[in-house]
């Protein structure tokens, strides 16, 4: 009973002298911090400090070599938004890229996952086949597709030969301003959508079968089941991937750089390829850092939208 009537320590001195408080503090506060400290220090060293340095560098004229970096305020940002036409074009391409990847692979993956979820035997084989492109290195994928899309020896040329046509399908998809960006998006999507499909399939398999049974009893057809059971069941995964794909769209680099390096004439230029060229070819590392900060701001903005939606009760 004495314990029940004992007063809680209020001042810091009382707390330190109190055995129970000390144990609780050790278990609930100190030990977790001790465990997380190495990771936290590593994070500060490899993420936080470089990020802060990057923000500072974006406000300098640093060339990327040596220590000479003059502070120029927001000049780099002003130039990016008001003077640099290529940045505006690259930003536009990033937005097109995002729209493409928020639609095409999602539709393909949802369709394939829905079909595969109903296969009882041999489903693993199909899943593996559709997933294989995802594990290929980007340089391998690009090499394969550059050959397949080659106007002289690719699929298009073979089709033209077979059908007796001339330059109907065998065109330089990566060499034309109007088709270059979408051709690269097609190649990247070829590699990517299988990954989405596997995620959606896993989410679909976690939906309790009784829900489908109940829907059937209520007279639902396949479409109704998909709309009222499957989609709500996998919604958190779909929305999370929406957020991730939107962020990744602003980081697009390797497929573009390996296939066209942003050409022809900047037709497939995106912010990341422009950033790379500024920092490493033009010796404008400060300017490149400003582009990097802008990419981060876009990513932050997308995350903020999703956080807001979650706070409003969306199941994300």
């Amino acid at each position, binding site marked *: 009973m004495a314990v029940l009537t004992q007063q809680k320590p209020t001042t810091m001195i009382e707390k330190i002298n109190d055995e129970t408080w000390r144990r609780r503090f050790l278990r609930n506060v100190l030990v977790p911090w001790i465990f997380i400290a190495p990771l936290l220090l590593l994070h500060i060293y490899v993420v936080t400090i470089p990020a802060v340095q990057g923000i500072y560098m974006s406000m300098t004229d640093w060339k990327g070599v040596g220590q000479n970096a003059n502070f120029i305020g927001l000049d780099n940002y002003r130039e990016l938004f008001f003077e640099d036409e290529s940045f505006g074009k690259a930003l536009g391409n990033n937005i097109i890229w995002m729209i493409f990847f928020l639609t095409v692979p999602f539709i393909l993956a949802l369709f394939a996952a829905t079909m595969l979820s109903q296969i009882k035997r041999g489903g693993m084989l199909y899943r593996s086949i559709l997933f294989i492109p995802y594990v290929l290195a980007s340089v391998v994928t690009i090499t394969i597709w550059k050959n397949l899309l080659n106007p002289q020896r690719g699929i298009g040329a073979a089709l033209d030969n077979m059908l007796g046509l001339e330059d109907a399908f065998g065109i*330089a998809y990566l*060499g034309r301003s109007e088709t270059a960006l979408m051709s690269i998006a097609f190649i990247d999507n070829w590699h990517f959508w299988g990954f989405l499909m596997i995620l959606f399939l896993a989410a679909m398999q976690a939906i309790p079968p009784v829900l489908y049974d109940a829907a059937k009893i209520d007279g639902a057809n396949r479409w109704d089941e998909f709309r009222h059971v499957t989609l709500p069941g996998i919604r958190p995964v779909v929305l999370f991937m929406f957020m991730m794909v939107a962020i990744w769209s602003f980081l697009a680099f390797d497929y573009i750089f390996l296939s*066209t390096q942003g050409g022809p004439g900047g*037709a497939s230029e995106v912010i990341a390829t422009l950033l790379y060229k500024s920092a490493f070819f033009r010796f404008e590392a400060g300017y490149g850092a400003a582009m990097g900060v802008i990419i981060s701001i876009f990513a932050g903005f997308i995350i903020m939208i999703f956080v807001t939606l979650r706070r409003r009760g969306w199941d994300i």
Partner: protein
Amino acid sequence: MKGIKILFAIAVLIMALAPVGAQDVTTVTMWFGEGSTLDCWGPIMLEFNDVDPSIQLEIVPQADTWNVTRTAVAGGGGPDIVRTPGPSFVYEMAQAGLILPMDSFSESMGWGDFFFDWALDLGLVDGQLYSLSDELETLVMYYNVEVFEENGWTPPDTMDELNALAAEVEAAGLTVFSHGNASWRPTNEHFVGEYWTQVAGPRKVYQALSGEIPWTDESLVEAIELLDAHMQAGWYGGGVDLYFTNDGVYRRTSLAEGSAAMNIEGSWAIRGTVEYFGESGMTWDWVPVPSHDGTDYYTIGMGNTSSINANSPHPEAAAQFLTWYFSPATQGKMLTNCLKGPAPVAIGEDVMAELDPRIARLYAELSDASANDRYGYTTWTFWPPKSDVYIYEEVERVWTGEITAMEYSEGLQELFAEELAAGDIPPIPTR
């Protein structure tokens, strides 16, 4: 007790001997791109280790060598010998104090005795020698001898002759130039630089590089317009869009197998040309790129440069390696064994006599042109970095019809003026 004594004696012996080895041998490090070039160059460079056993060269293969090197050097590390892709890159490193001025080594080791005067000048930054240029390059017009003989064609000397020949080549169902930039987008700048030199003339280019005339000068714009006209006519790889998708293999095979008649390419392409023509069984030869007035102009370029890291603990040893490496004997051996573009040094006639006469003729003509005011400038060697990137990136917008040749030239003038004012222009040999 006896065992302890023996151990003690061994320990003393090791301690006595160890410093001798450590102090006597100095290791000079060099980072080098992985691949077939290193396979051929490496063993020859390592022959340096037999010259003076107290200095040993260590070659460290690196992927993406230049970016790795500059990151390491900026961080206070990196190899003793710093190789860059060209004089304009040296400028930035010298300004940042990352590489050493080498004037004292040049004087004491007699670099001026074997380097051409203008070549040493290329390594000057604010009057001090910071780099030695390597891999002397130029662009020439390669052609397929059998294709020319079968059709009764002769290689053109002037742009007018080239125009007439191109019409015949197209009529024969062949591609005029086997070209494409899918493997290396900066290929574009080869043609821009070449047309400026061959159409407007090297003196005009020199004046523009010196800031005496703008890049919007009529003759320089005319050169870009002519290049665009040739591009639109499908001379380069069969069409503008095909040019953007043709890769290096296409470039070599189509010329070597006779589906293309000619190819304007650098002297660095000799090795590949020899290889592909060897496989096809046909014969290659070269002529100077046709010019407006028929004069044989050769644009001069450098493939890379070598400097000494400011953080090198033994710059003297690094300089000794450079002296050996750039000597005419070593350069001659690398030319004959690997078909490496030699450094701009006076290579002996005995070495040249061992070469394929076509290759020997190329370097002899280049040497003659540089001595007789018939040399021009390659963009990657003599233009500052931002202008250089602009030249090869934005010209695609001319070819895709987005901007005109004049708008392209105005954009270049604006950028070049900024870099000129900032003093970022690499050293240009005076004429």
